[in-house]
């Protein structure tokens, strides 16, 4: 098991799709609305070496109640500017598209957390701050401190993409069964 801590540096370049890692340190949640706001107004946190978590948490009484990943593919066309600004890791579920895979090339990784495991994730999180609270609970950018969140490298910095590989295999299985 490889342990990562933010801010992330060149150590992420040696990770390979399929590796199991844990991540500690700061992550910033961001979904569709936050990405659009950041594209317009600028990134409100230091993006260099940062990790952005695709997540709309349940927050109550100043703490993280539940915080599993949201579907990352919704942010396929909204992530390039983050990687250009130095963000080293995108975290979510379900994988991302070819443009993000290219954007990560030589720069960063996409890390997958188990979808739906919101209580498990929250148990390893401490709420630190918030940006864009006016966007509402699910869409605000929450600054969260992680303690060893277990993740799988889904897309690496060398073009390795576990989701794309599985998808291609699935397509072959489908064709074999239904298109013969």
């Amino acid at each position, binding site marked *: 098991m490889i342990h990562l801590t933010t801010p992330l540096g060149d150590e992420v370049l040696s990770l390979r799709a399929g590796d199991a890692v844990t991540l500690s340190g700061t992550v910033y949640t961001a979904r569709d609305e936050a990405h659009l706001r950041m594209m317009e107004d600028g990134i409100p946190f230091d993006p260099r070496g940062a990790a952005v978590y695709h997540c709309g948490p349940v927050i109550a009484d100043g703490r993280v109640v539940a915080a599993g990943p949201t579907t990352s593919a919704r942010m396929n066309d909204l992530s390039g500017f983050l990687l250009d600004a130095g963000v080293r890791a995108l975290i979510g579920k379900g994988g991302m598209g070819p443009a993000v895979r290219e954007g990560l090339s030589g720069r960063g990784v996409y890390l997958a957390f188990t979808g739906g495991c919101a209580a498990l994730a929250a148990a390893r999180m401490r709420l630190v701050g918030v940006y864009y609270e006016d966007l509402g609970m699910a869409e605000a950018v929450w600054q969260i401190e992680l303690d060893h969140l277990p993740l799988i490298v889904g897309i690496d910095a060398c073009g390795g993409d576990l989701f794309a590989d*599985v998808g291609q295999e699935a397509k072959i299985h489908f064709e074999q069964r239904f298109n013969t």
Partner: protein
Amino acid sequence: MERGASRLLEAVASATASALEEAETTLPADVLGAIEGALERERNPIARTQIENILENVRYAGEHALPICQDTGVPVVYLTLPPTVPFTPELREAVAEGVRRATVAVPLRPNVVDPLTRQNTGDNTGGGMPAVHVTPGDDLTITVLPKGAGAENCSRIAMLLPSQVGSVARFATETVLLAGGKPCPPVVLGIGIGSTFDGAAARAKEALLLSIDTMTPYEQEICDAVNALCIGPMGLGGDVTALAVKVRQGHCHTASLPVAVNVQCWAHRRATRRVAV
């Protein structure tokens, strides 16, 4: 009489809130059993870590009365009403009141927005929300099915030709192929076959109310086809892509074959309360 009516409405609101609290923080025994069964037959090591995370998460959420998933979904409610209880606007409002209470008490993420302005109502109710489906019954029962968007967004409907009866499995499997890891597999598929365009979608969701302990040979055949894709838990590869497939059908026009596939993530949450009338 008036007092009896308001007592019933309060009981409905309270039972709705209580059912939502149970559904959001625990999994039904049949669903938990299916996930444990998935761990037994999954051979892919990465896939196994995902199922282990899921089981640990469910255990932790139950112990601490926390939502299993941060996408606490939108409320879908199924009522059975005995002949003595009419479905009135007040009864509908009592169900909505139960949703509002659960939103604060559990707590639930406020997920309900205006479809165009995207303005959040803040309490998980709104126009057409909660979705309430009513059928006649012997007792007053309230079943809640909180539906998350990751899986719901991957659902599809098709108006097949009558000659394409053999293509239902293909359409369902293709739905999972296109979805990949997005709906949080291992999934449960509710498939509605027949009725009308809208009726097929309603049956697909109703199929998700059925126990996933057992499958008919037809359901098993579709489930096997989906699992042969090897998409696996979270789309990371593996043997278990679907926990179960459930089918509900209705008769249809001789020229029609509507088929709807309602995709449900592994967090297949539902709970029922019976209200004395």
